[in-house]
């Protein structure tokens, strides 16, 4: 089995297992502790994948630097997940709002920087795309941004909540919108790589951002039942799990492809 197929199979199995864990509430009364314990480790897949890519490109390479920023953003989110878990399940204190939110929110600028660097290197050519498609993408972005603001702010805003709580909700929405725009460009970047190994990698990263976005919107709308671990609101986690695993898939695919080419060149030299 090729490494790319192996990692796909591993990530798929991980998603399937977590899906069953969440959906069928395995562990009964201890399900909340169990799912949150498992959930904390999921971002590690994307972080390991990101570090693998950075290692393959090295930090002197612009793609390597971009991958390092994206990975740093994911590390911040991982720190946020760990702090959230410690607050909720070790200290039994409400984790929202808490220092974990600072870590989550700090992750956004790193991801944004990484995506923008990647888009700058790619020098995406918009001239060869059908104007109708550009218009459709523009409208879709506008509608999505509107939905993010509507659900993330207007619906989620709670006058009875503290100023801090509402400010954090606003910060999440701002972060999501900041990621949404480059994410649309990432889709174009992925399409540009059609026929190449980076095609599926960037498409996966696009889906990862998109899943995070929907996870954040649903969290903003259903914060209280989610915090109380009430089913089916806990299923929101599946969107974030999907997102981390998609990041991991994108990174591992890139790293394995780079390694393949490196080995091919090594073989050519030995001949």
């Amino acid at each position, binding site marked *: 089995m090729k490494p790319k197929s192996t990692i796909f199979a591993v990530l798929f199995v991980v998603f399937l297992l977590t899906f069953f864990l969440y959906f069928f509430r395995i562990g009964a009364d201890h399900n909340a502790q169990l799912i949150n314990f498992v959930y904390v480790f999921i971002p590690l897949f994307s972080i390991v994948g990101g570090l693998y890519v950075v290692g393959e490109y090295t930090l002197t390479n612009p793609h390597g630097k971009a991958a390092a920023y994206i990975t740093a953003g994911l590390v911040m989110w991982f720190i946020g997940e760990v702090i959230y878990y410690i607050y909720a399940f070790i200290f039994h204190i409400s984790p929202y709002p808490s220092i974990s939110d600072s870590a989550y929110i700090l992750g956004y600028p790193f991801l944004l920087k990484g995506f923008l660097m990647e888009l700058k290197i790619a020098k995406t050519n918009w001239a060869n795309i059908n104007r109708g498609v550009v218009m459709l993408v523009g409208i879709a972005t506008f509608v999505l941004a509107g939905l993010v603001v509507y659900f993330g702010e207007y619906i989620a805003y709670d006058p009875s909540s503290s100023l801090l709580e509402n400010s954090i909700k606003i910060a999440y929405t701002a972060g999501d919108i900041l990621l949404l725009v480059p994410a649309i460009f990432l889709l174009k970047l992925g399409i540009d790589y059609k026929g190449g190994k980076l095609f599926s990698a960037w498409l996966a990263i696009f889906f990862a951002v998109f899943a995070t976005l929907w996870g954040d919107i649903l969290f903003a709308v259903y914060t209280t039942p989610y915090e109380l671990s009430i089913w089916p609101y806990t299923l929101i986690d599946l969107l974030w799990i999907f997102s981390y695993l998609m990041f991991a898939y994108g990174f591992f695919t890139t790293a394995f492809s*780079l390694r393949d080419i490196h080995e091919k060149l090594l073989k050519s030299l030995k001949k």
Partner: protein
Amino acid sequence: MEKIEGLQEDVVRLISLNFGEKSGNLFNNFYDHETPEVMLASARELLAELLGPARTEIELEVIYKKYNIQK
């Protein structure tokens, strides 16, 4: 085709950018004694594997134009 001053450096730079410096160095060593045609054909093949054919042409277009090479 005779060796063209600067062409190999530019192709190696392109390979290094897309595959990392380690692969760039390997490419440089391997194609040091090859003709520009062979080197460019190999670069195209490698780039297409990662970036796909359309993106590869965009990347190579700059080099073709700079050195006035016919495809």
